[in-house]
């Protein structure tokens, strides 16, 4: 056994050295763009197209949570990364922390393509720092064949008929938030007593919960593992694409709303390349490709004609969602309460 191990290791070492050598070559000469966002935010063709056209090599690295991104950016003091795409609330913090540079709008010739509905929001009121790239509203989706009741709002998720049949996303601000909405409060409630009360109501949902997952939540709906899902927009799009008889509900109690946007860190090593890339993805036909890929609400009005018919439907912002409420950063104390009631809720599931 030992001899075999030794041989295996030797072979492996040779393979590794070869791989390392093959990889180390040609990198330094070309200009690069360090793109930092979630995985799968761009179709491969769009990335390759940019590389070919501008001769800039893209370095695509991923984070899992917005907070992870901010931690990295803080330690790099706004350097290392050239372009970041993240959620609205974290961008607000990043701007406050001085980690974001102002955009040079003379370099963004396609900026007018952005749908003004998605501009001028709380995280960047003057649009000095960011370019929106997709928006989302968490929605209820259900399989009418597997559910006996009519679902119109969050409240119906509590219906005993849905026992062990609901799939939820794992963002506690959103889930706790829908309870607050049912109570007629805001997603961004800062009063801990109110949040505590929401926590009590949330505990009553526990028997209905089949699973909580941030990842591929739509799959469980498609495979019939759960009959009702409360999902992110991209997941709603994917669920509908795979199973068109699913029904989408815009809950009557009010919607949550979020925008993802791209920004350039204050000390970005290749700020120029970042501007070029931002401008490139603002082109109507490129943007259409991107939005069809990510499945978030299209923030580029010029791209709409280039979308496929189904995508025009699913990627447009419906009338009722215009009133959606942003989920913003709240006080540390309120956040701690959220975290605790969420843990209590999860502990009650099992």
């Amino acid at each position, binding site marked *: *056994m030992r001899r075999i191990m030794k041989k295996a290791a030797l072979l492996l070492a040779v393979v590794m050295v070869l791989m390392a050598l093959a990889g180390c070559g040609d990198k330094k000469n070309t200009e690069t763009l360090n793109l930092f966002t979630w995985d799968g935010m761009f179709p491969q063709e769009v990335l390759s197209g940019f590389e070919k056209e501008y001769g800039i090599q893209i370095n695509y690295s991923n984070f*899992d949570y917005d907070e992870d991104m*901010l931690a990295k950016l803080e330690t790099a003091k706004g350097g290392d990364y050239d372009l970041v795409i993240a959620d609205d609330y974290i961008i607000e913090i990043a701007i406050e922390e001085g980690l974001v540079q102002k955009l040079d709008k003379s370099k963004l010739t396609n900026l007018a393509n952005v749908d003004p509905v998605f501009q001028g929001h709380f995280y960047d009121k003057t649009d000095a720092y960011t370019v929106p790239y997709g928006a989302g509203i968490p929605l209820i989706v259900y399989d009418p064949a597997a559910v006996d009741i009519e679902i119109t709002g969050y409240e119906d998720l509590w219906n005993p008929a849905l026992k062990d049949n609901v799939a939820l996303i794992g963002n506690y601000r959103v889930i706790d938030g829908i309870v607050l909405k049912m109570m007629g409060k805001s997603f961004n409630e800062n009063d801990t007593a109110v949040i505590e009360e929401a926590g009590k109501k949330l505990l009553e949902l526990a028997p209905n919960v089949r699973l909580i997952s941030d990842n591929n939540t739509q799959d469980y709906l498609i495979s019939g*593992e759960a009959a009702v899902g409360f999902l992110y927009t991209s997941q709603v799009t994917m669920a509908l694409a795979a199973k068109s008889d699913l029904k989408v509900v815009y809950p009557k109690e009010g919607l949550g709303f979020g925008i993802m946007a791209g920004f350039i860190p204050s000390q970005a090593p290749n700020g120029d390349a970042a501007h070029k890339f931002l401008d490139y993805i603002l082109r109507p036909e490129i943007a259409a490709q991107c939005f069809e890929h990510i499945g978030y609400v299209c923030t580029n009005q010029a791209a709409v004609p280039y979308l496929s018919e189904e995508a025009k439907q699913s990627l447009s912002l419906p009338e009722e969602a215009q009133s959606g409420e942003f989920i913003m950063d709240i006080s540390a104390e309120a*956040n*701690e309460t959220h*975290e605790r009631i969420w843990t209590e809720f999860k*502990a009650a599931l*099992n």
Partner: protein
Amino acid sequence: MRRSNRRGIPHGFLMSLPMYLFTLFFVLAPLCYMVILSFLTRAEVWGVVHEVTLDNYRNILTPVYLKTFYESLKLAVICVVLIILTGYPFGYFMAKLSSTWKRRVSMLLMIPFWTSALIRMYGWIIIFRSNGILDKLLMGLHITKEPLKLLYTYPAVVVGMVYALVPFMIFAVYSSAEKMDWSLVEAARDLGASPAKAFFTVTLRLTMPGLLSGVVLTFIPSMGLFFIADILGGNKVVLVGSLIQEQLMKARNWPFAAALSVVLMILTSLIIWLYRRVTKVRDLEGFY
């Protein structure tokens, strides 16, 4: 031996110097920093403020967080017991195989390590999900009539944990059993001990170092492998690991995450120490 000792000290020290330094700079120092962090206060928006407080530890005493610790420990104990029950016989039997088969089996055990652990868990989803492979098998054999909801249950998490960790136990037990002096077992049998008695008085004692290192290597990860609870348990089983991750990544409460980590570390060290005291094994056995 006397001579070699006298001459060996400086060289031995020189040799272990890199490890001393590495441990000092990259294990001890970060650990100390974590302990310090656990006494600081979180900043309102981002980062920490240098205000010393005990609040983070007081926070742990909240019933729900205490319960999380209890649940984690319970899951870890269940998993380790099952790991011992499945892994110990495997390692023991493996040591009795011919050398060719020992080699083959240990290769077969190693190969799964070379694929992503995350992806292997997805393989289990295919098996467990409703109308999945297990359901079809059971219904085909007329054992069950309708799809069981196996995925996102406690047992699914336990299976995932055992699956992910059992190779560590197998290697640990195997390395002990392989080095064991089988003539001692034979002697016990010759002296009239029943197979069971011979096993418990001789074999088990001699393989205890392996068993212990197996327990240490599997007990602690089973409290921290939160992605298994996420993928197979549908996030319904709250582990200290997932709590720390949530505090760190979503709640941005680093000091509380640090305090949770410190408590978890003390707890696990205590368990290891206790186990050593009980089994009177001083040294950790390598699992080769």
